[in-house]
């Protein structure tokens, strides 16, 4: 395994780890750091790792919104933004990604944790 990491996160160390048989860059907590290394297969593996065994259409809708929004905005959407702009009910997000929906969504979508307060 060689170091080819070009991280955008200057505050923490990036590590390479293996997800779904692929080497990907993650930060010290395990959130992926390279947008283009993410794939549907990786997403399924990440979801399984945090106890979400099956990704339904509703899961995918949230994940796809998060990915597209990040590509446009350069930062991970907060729950409120997923609700307001993505049109997914907050209640539903808590059902899909129990307890810590914003962080869990970001994790499986291969994005950094959201930084917004609301």
């Amino acid at each position, binding site marked *: *395994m*060689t*170091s080819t*990491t*070009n*991280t955008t996160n200057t505050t923490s*160390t*990036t*590590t*390479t*780890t*293996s*997800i*779904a*048989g692929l*080497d990907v860059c*993650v930060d*010290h*907590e*395990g*959130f992926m750091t390279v947008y283009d290394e993410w794939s549907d297969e990786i997403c399924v*593996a*990440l979801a399984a*790792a*945090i*106890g979400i065994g099956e990704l339904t259409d509703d899961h995918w809708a949230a994940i796809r919104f998060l990915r597209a929004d990040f590509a446009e905005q350069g930062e991970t959407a907060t*729950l*409120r*933004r997923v*609700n*307001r702009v993505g049109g997914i*009910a*907050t*209640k539903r997000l*808590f059902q899909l990604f*129990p*307890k*810590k*929906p*914003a*962080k*869990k969504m970001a*994790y499986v979508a291969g994005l950094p944790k959201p930084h917004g*307060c*609301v």
Partner: protein
Amino acid sequence: MTVTETTATATATETAPAVMPDFGDDDADRTMCFICSKGTLDMAYPALVMANGALGEGIDVHLFFTFWGMDMITKKTMGDLKFTILGNPATHMPQGLGGVPGMTAVATKMMKKQIADLDVPEIPEFLELLVDSGAHLWACRMSVDMMKLDQDDLFDGVEDIINVTDFMELSDDAQIIFV
């Protein structure tokens, strides 16, 4: 520069990643209770923002509204909280200015715009967001009696009117934050 670590577990493909966030799913349940006792716009937001953050972290949240905090959940007033520079030296404005007629309306308008610019909702919508996220809202019995209100006067998301003993029971082992 970045450092690449090769660990033994990283070679174990098709299993959980070697480095994973701790989502705290196995942690004991944590409960936070916010006592909202103020009815000004600037004092309404801190508890709501913190409560929202707590809910997003999987924490059980209760909000207990008392005294002037009742304005936050009373239908008639909840959409019309105000901000004044009077008695608030942190605005760094001459205090005399606060007494000028219309100044509170101007200050309120300015603060509402600043909050809206951050895409943070107004109080009624924020309370709906909190309820949708699983928060429990309670009204103070003594305040309701004092202000001659009843449940119908209150925001629909308020679960019940409870007394201090009820609050002590539900906040048992909780972290309590008084605002």
